[in-house]
């Protein structure tokens, strides 16, 4: 089994629980898990303790439980971390959270868009672009903006594997192809 398969399985199970009937506020869950991830990343000792087979499972569980209480994690988040500890998948936590975030977006009708523009945009332009993309995809768009001067002018939006290319660079490339083909 590939690691990506493992990651997506844990992520979708977590998303099921979070968005389920006894669920919790999704952004909150995400934030809490990110908090634990930051803690884990910051402490090599904790990483070792949770990864080491020499530490008994019960003690690992106790550590995670204590940390969760201190961080004030919700029940679902705490249980999820305990499951990961039991299954010795704590190493994949960061990836699982990333996948979980994507899963959540999908379920809540969000799509992620990367928007590259030639010049930096003001808020009004950003909103207009996001609006237009929402209209195109029929979903709410969560956009990330970057500036790429090599586009010369216009903007390129990438949603998943679909690319909407309205840049001058793209036009010039297309023109170049057309001329070369003739």
């Amino acid at each position, binding site marked *: 089994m590939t690691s*990506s398969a493992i990651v997506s399985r844990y992520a979708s199970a977590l998303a099921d629980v979070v968005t389920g009937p006894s669920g919790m506020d999704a952004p909150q869950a995400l934030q809490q898990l990110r908090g634990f991830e930051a803690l884990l990343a910051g402490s090599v000792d904790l990483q070792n303790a949770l990864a080491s087979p020499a530490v008994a499972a019960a003690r690992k569980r106790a550590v995670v439980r204590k940390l969760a209480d201190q961080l004030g994690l919700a029940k679902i988040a705490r249980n999820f971390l305990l499951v990961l500890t039991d299954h010795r998948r704590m190493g994949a936590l960061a990836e699982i959270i990333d996948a979980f975030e994507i899963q959540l977006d999908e379920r809540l009708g969000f799509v992620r868009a990367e928007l590259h523009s030639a010049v930096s945009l003001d808020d009004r332009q950003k909103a207009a672009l996001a609006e237009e993309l929402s209209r195109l995809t029929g979903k709410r768009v969560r956009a990330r903006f970057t500036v790429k001067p090599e586009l010369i002018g216009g903007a390129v939006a*990438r949603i998943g*594997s*679909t*690319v909407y290319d*309205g840049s001058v660079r*793209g*036009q010039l490339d297309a*023109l170049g192809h057309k*001329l070369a083909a003739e």
Partner: protein
Amino acid sequence: MAQIRADEITSLLRQEIENYERAIDVSETGSVISVGDGIARIHGLEKVMAGELIQFPHDVSGIAMNLEEDQVGAVLLGDYTHIREGDEVRRTSRIMSVPVGEAMVGRVVNALGAPIDGKGPIHTTTFNAVERLAPGVVDRQPVKEPLQTGIKAIDSMIPIGRGQRELVIGDRQTGKTALALDTIINQKGGNVICIYVAIGQKRSTVAQVVKTLEEFGAMDYSIVVAATASDPAPMQYIAPYCGCAMGEFFRDSARHALCIYDDLSKHAAAYREISLLLRRPPGREAFPGDVFFLHSRLLERAAKLNNENGGGSLTALPFIETQAGDISAYIPTNVISITDGQIYLQTDLFNSNVRPAIDVGLSVSRVGGNAQIKAMRQVAGTLRLDLAQYRNLAAFAQFGSDLDKASQAQLNRGRRLVEVLKQLQYQPLPVEKQVAIIFAGTSGFLDDLPVEQCRKFEQDLYSYIDNAHPSMWAQIREKKTLDDALRNELQGAVKEFKARFIAQEKQATTLNA
């Protein structure tokens, strides 16, 4: 490339600028994870469909072959050395197609349909998908028109009909390609378009084939599709489908086409290469599980359409090269079971100077007599049987035992029939001449001639009838059957000629002595 004038560029640019607002290019993209051995693994392209054409940078295209959970496996067509990890690829929403039509005739093209004969671009606007479904059951009719190969042994005993699939199988150097060339040359003046697909052959061999076809004026109605040994495996893999697509154009426009796949063993090997690189599980002889379907879907496209569909036909002559005469290997048995018969060429026969080296015992045509003109059926009816009995007896007679008179006669007849069926390369015979000589052989006119004179007899017989009975060829050709009058005339002519021939030979021997 034609020279572009500066003002043309300006006007083009102006148009582009004017239309700028409208042009937002929407595409689905992915990125190359890894590339190598003619295979690319791609991330993204979530909606790509199996068999879809994918556009890579540097004008290379590929075909999506493996759709996996988080990546797409694609084969690359063309020069893939410039493609790098991380390159952006695009969906095209098209499946692979090749140019087809009249303009292709007389040309040598590669597996993508691009000309490689240096005779300039091909002007055709018609394209056919490379992978198409075979015509259905109701669109077909039984094979009934003969496709004359011009080879006596085949046309008399293993007749091939239009729309049939006849396998040509044999070791290397047994005359498989020669048989193909003879068949193509024999279509001269007819209405059959010939497509020769060379798969995994040496470029020199392909050049030789093209040269031969040109010499005999056969390129005027032929297309050569070449995916040579130096072309990447994906090109060799699609080449037969590409040739078939070109043939289908003629089939579907109520004409006749003949497609020769030389050879499908190398095609299977190319497909095995692709499959293993794509990490599909290997099976017997390391071929993938769908190697049977690989050939069956290709050969199923050969068909004789019914009259509502124009009555066109596509005949397939797949070739298989065996190793040391082993026809029970994996690919040979597969293709034998797909086709409507096989022509088996044998090294032993070839070396003992029986050429074409057709093993009459192992060769069959399951469409058989329907694909023969009646006259041929009449004269060749006993030929197979005679030869079979001859072979049995010949094996027996090798022990030097005394034979009764009937057996002696059978041996005699057999030896002469074998002699009569020999034929030189590039000399296909029209069916009426075949009828005449086979008539002479099976009616026993050759039995008292020395074996070594049989072939001279044959040649002289043709020229004698040309001169003395010039209308006979046309009669056989048009009536297509030997009625009593014609049979008597033919018998008379052969008898008359034989008397002359014997006298002439006697004179020659006395002169020499």
